């Protein structure tokens, strides 16, 4: 071992020529846990030439119901439901998709009133996957021409995407049920998934925010060109049109109600949002936890400015005329006090 030392010393002298200078305290304190940014440049996905089948979803008799995935695409806005696909650049250099490792006390979430608050507990290392962020100032319309969705998205009009997918459920011999989904001008700014380890629970926990802003969303229950689905009128009659719709889905509040994605020891899936007051021993602690939870826990909002069954859009992005108009539908300020969903084998 001793004879290796001169060799190491020789090597270190050679590399020392690069003149590394030590960081002083002031420089060190500026270093924070940062991550990687991702920008998708000129992206286009089209699975129209492939056969994708989803299996293992069974009917009441335990038989497999194969689901064929068709017409899956992702491209620039204005694609006319995937008919005219062009590449799109999504995520901005200044506001990219990101994978971060940060301390719980350094992360912030946007509350509905525009305040940034800490939702993750202190003294944990959090792995965070984020979409392009929402901004305090200088943002863009989350949905063009619909102020209700907010003007704090970092994505601009050209960075929004069109995407769609069609599922064919082969329910029985000779019968196929179709769900065809097309989303126009989609932005998902401010969405994130955060994961960390909870030592008291001895498991991985997290919190998630899923923001979906879509100018148009259309759900059609038949495949174009099949029986009773050939003319534009027949196709329109089997379509649900959503115009100017958005959803902010908040799952979990890291400090007192982390999202638990478990598999039980007998092999079943459990999704749980625990009671934020669980484990609090005194009335004072329960009160402070409850008021903190109600003040800061992110809420779930689902807003559809126009919901229409049937009819037709006079031009892209305009609410349809004809059919049945169900007007504006909203769920706002939904907060989960407790949620537990468990899978069972049938």
């Amino acid at each position, binding site marked *: 071992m001793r004879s290796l030392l001169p060799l190491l010393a020789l090597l270190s002298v050679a590399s020392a020529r690069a003149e590394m200078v030590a960081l002083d305290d002031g420089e060190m304190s500026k270093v*924070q846990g940062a991550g990687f940014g991702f920008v998708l440049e*000129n992206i*286009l996905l089209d699975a129209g030439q492939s056969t994708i089948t989803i299996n293992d979803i069974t009917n009441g008799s*335990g038989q497999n119901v194969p689901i064929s995935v068709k017409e899956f695409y992702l491209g620039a806005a204005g694609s006319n439901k995937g008919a005219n696909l062009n590449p799109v650049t999504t995520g901005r250099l*200044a506001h990219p998709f990101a994978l971060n490792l940060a301390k719980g006390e350094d992360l912030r979430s946007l509350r509905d009133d525009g305040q940034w608050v800490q939702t993750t507990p202190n003294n944990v290392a959090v792995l965070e996957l984020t979409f392009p962020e929402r901004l305090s100032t200088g943002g863009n319309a989350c949905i063009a021409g619909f102020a209700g969705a907010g003007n704090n998205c970092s994505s601009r009009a050209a960075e929004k995407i069109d995407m769609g997918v069609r599922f064919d459920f082969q329910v029985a011999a000779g019968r196929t049920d179709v769900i065809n989904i097309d989303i126009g001008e989609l932005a998902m700014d401010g969405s994130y998934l955060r994961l960390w380890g909870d030592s008291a629970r001895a*498991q991985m926990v997290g919190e998630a925010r899923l923001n979906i802003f879509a100018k148009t969303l259309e759900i059609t229950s038949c495949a174009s060109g099949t029986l009773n689905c050939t003319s534009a009128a027949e196709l329109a009659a089997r379509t649900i049109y959503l115009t100017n719709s958005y959803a902010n889905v908040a799952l979990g509040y890291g400090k007192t109600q982390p999202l638990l994605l478990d*598999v039980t*020891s*007998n*092999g079943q899936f459990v999704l749980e949002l625990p009671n934020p007051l669980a484990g609090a021993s005194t009335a004072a602690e329960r009160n402070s936890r409850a008021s903190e939870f109600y003040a800061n826990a992110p809420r779930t909002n689902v807003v559809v400015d126009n919901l229409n069954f049937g009819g037709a859009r006079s031009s892209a992005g305009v609410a349809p005329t004809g059919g049945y108009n169900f007007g504006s539908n909203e769920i706002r300020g939904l907060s989960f006090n407790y949620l537990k969903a468990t899978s069972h084998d049938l």
Partner: protein
Amino acid sequence: MISRLGLLLCTLLTATAQAELHPLADDSLSDVSGQGGVYLSGEFSINKEGGPLWSKPASTNAATWTVGERSCATKGSTTPENCGMRLAVRSEAAGGWYVLDNIKGIFSFEGLTLRTRVINSGFAGDGAGFNRDVLEFGLPNEVKFKDGSFAFAVANQGGWRNSAGTVANGGDASYQQTNIFSAKIDGSIRMQGNVLVFPKN
């Protein structure tokens, strides 16, 4: 032994040093710039003929499988199929396992590129202010799949056990696995564009 090894290393070092390396002058160095990058095209196959863990049984009836046999045929099928790779993760000390099961197939692509690039313009006005290097992954324009498959499941043990088999055949009735869904992919998927990666701070 170690001292002899050290001597040998020193000798090697001396031997290489005789090639007389000269330092590059500053102007020669300034001519060197990171160019090129990597262009990859290829085809790879994962567990197409089954993995080392399980061999293909003669029937799809799990009760008849012997030790080391497993079929991953779709429910209702009577033709046994080889099983692919299995990946199991447990995120809770006393909990069950998330499983990515039966990962197999042939994937081929043409023109996956990897290089660095300076961005100082474009991007609808964002590029000039950015003015930094990024790592650019160029996606292949087309990825072809043949018999690609995977299944997402939850299970009470990381390793697969035959819950329907007899104990003599390596069966374990306490094993529980629930397949949430599985997917099969055939044909080509158009996948174009670049993924730009850069440090964020």
